């Protein structure tokens, strides 16, 4: 892990603090107010904010523009980029565009399949995959070169991250898969939402046994349930999501009006337990269309105030 901080998030991790990130989805329109409002709400409680890139393949305002809005209001963005919609020319060009605004963090993803979104009849690109996207940014940043070999004038300088889903199948390659992302050049990882803590712990043990936690910062992903219905939906309908029966039951056994509160409780308990797991360097709180709850979660999980760094 290199010593010069490339972003606030990076510095937080370098100095050994538990980092906190969150994420916001851009609007389905050109009015940036909503995303600015979301960012305003959470900015003092997190170190950086991920901006999703047409998540679930539903067309939205682009991640890059939303990142620029955040940056201009003094909030540190994490640019999410999927390989679904861009070929290698567009990818490199977008990286340079982001770098020209000094967007300091980037998360490399392959993206949900377009069949989930609002353009199921569209083509997908997948010229390169998420691992190769990590390699591409690292090449551009560290060697100052394009994929074609030419020199870049003022190369990008991002802190490079990737996603990991400890719960997808096949489980036996989930640690090797992380190793692959680290080998490709990932410096931080944000995980899929964690509800099955035992399984996550098993995965983290495998990660630590291979010493990967010393090569990459792992931010554990959490998402509070708003309702029992959401818990059931996540369990049954979201591919690669692992929600244990007892968690669904706990939500379902709670009276309807108390369910949001119970969802937050579960989330905070999870963070408490995750703090005790070796190799966890921070948290990625994805409060889907519920950003106003992020401050409460951060405070109650004793992650507030955020450490002062310059």
């Amino acid at each position, binding site marked *: 892990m290199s010593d010069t901080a490339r972003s606030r998030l990076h510095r937080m991790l370098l100095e050994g603090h538990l980092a906190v990130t969150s994420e916001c989805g851009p609007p389905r329109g050109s009015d940036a107010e909503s995303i600015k409002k979301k960012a305003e709400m959470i900015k003092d409680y997190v170190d950086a904010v991920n901006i999703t890139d047409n998540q679930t393949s539903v067309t939205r305002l682009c991640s890059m523009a939303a990142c620029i809005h955040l940056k201009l209001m003094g909030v540190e963005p994490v640019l999410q980029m999927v390989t*679904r919609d861009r070929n*290698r020319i567009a990818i490199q060009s977008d990286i340079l565009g982001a770098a020209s605004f000094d967007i300091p963090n980037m998360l490399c993803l*392959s*993206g*949900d*399949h377009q*069949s*989930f979104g609002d353009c199921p009849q569209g083509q*997908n690109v*997948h*010229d*390169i*995959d*998420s*691992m*190769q996207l990590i*390699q*591409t940014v690292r090449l551009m940043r560290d060697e100052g070169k394009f*994929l074609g070999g030419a020199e870049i004038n003022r190369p990008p300088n991002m802190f490079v991250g990737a*996603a*990991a*889903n400890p719960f*997808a*199948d*096949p489980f*036996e*390659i989930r640690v*090797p*898969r992380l*190793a*692959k992302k680290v*080998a*490709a050049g990932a410096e931080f990882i944000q995980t*899929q939402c964690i509800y099955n803590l035992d399984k996550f712990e098993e995965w983290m043990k495998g990660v630590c046994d291979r010493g990967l936690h010393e090569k990459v910062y792992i931010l554990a992903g959490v998402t509070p349930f708003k309702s029992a219905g959401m818990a059931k939906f996540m369990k049954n309908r979201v*591919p*690669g999501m692992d929600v244990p029966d007892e968690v669904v039951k706990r939500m379902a056994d709670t009276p309807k009006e108390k369910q949001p509160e119970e969802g937050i409780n579960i989330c905070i308990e999870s963070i408490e337990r995750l703090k005790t797991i070796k190799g966890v360097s921070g948290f990625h709180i994805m409060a889907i269309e519920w950003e106003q709850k992020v401050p409460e979660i951060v405070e109650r999980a004793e992650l507030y105030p955020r450490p002062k760094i310059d």
Partner: protein
Amino acid sequence: MIIAEKKPIEEIIGYIDDCEKLLILGCNECVTVCEAGGKKEVGVLASALRMYFLNQGREVKIDEITLERQCDHEYLEEIRDVADQYDAIVSLACGVGVQFLAEKYHSQRVYPGVNTCFLGATEERGRWTERCQACGTCILAYTGGICPIARCAKRLLNGPCGGSSNGKCEINPELDCAWQLIIDRLKALGRLEDYEKLLEIKDWSTDRAGGPRKVVREDIQI
């Protein structure tokens, strides 16, 4: 082989409704095996069209011929003497055959009678599935003999994605996840450690990205 599917008859009628003399031209190769454009399907289409026209009060002459192949000059030559007697030819060959026919009989109206779908195999009678996308630079050696380009919905060279669950792909619970298959096969081969080798960014210039492709073998040219 090339897998094709019969076009709806309404669509075919739309192309040829104005004709008085028609040839339905089948092909004895892939489309016969996948039962979309062989002799039998030629018979069914011809019979249905004849009755359709009769029901419209028109007697349209519809002939049936099935060639050994439609992607070779020598077989296409077999209809040289009759081709121009028809107002149109409906070819039940794959897209290659239809085009080769159209090239050869330059001023003849030629229509496709099937939708050409993919390169696949007969998994069981009546069920064909995709295996290859003819990318031009085969990587099966690195992926346990299972193609992630044709069989992974995101053609990930370093998969699986986070959506793989219970061996199935995130886009459809009936579809096998190609990367689950790859890992299972690597395991069976005792080569799971190969999984950790990063596959390089692919040269897609041999794929459709590089424009129309050709293979030239000077050693066998005459």
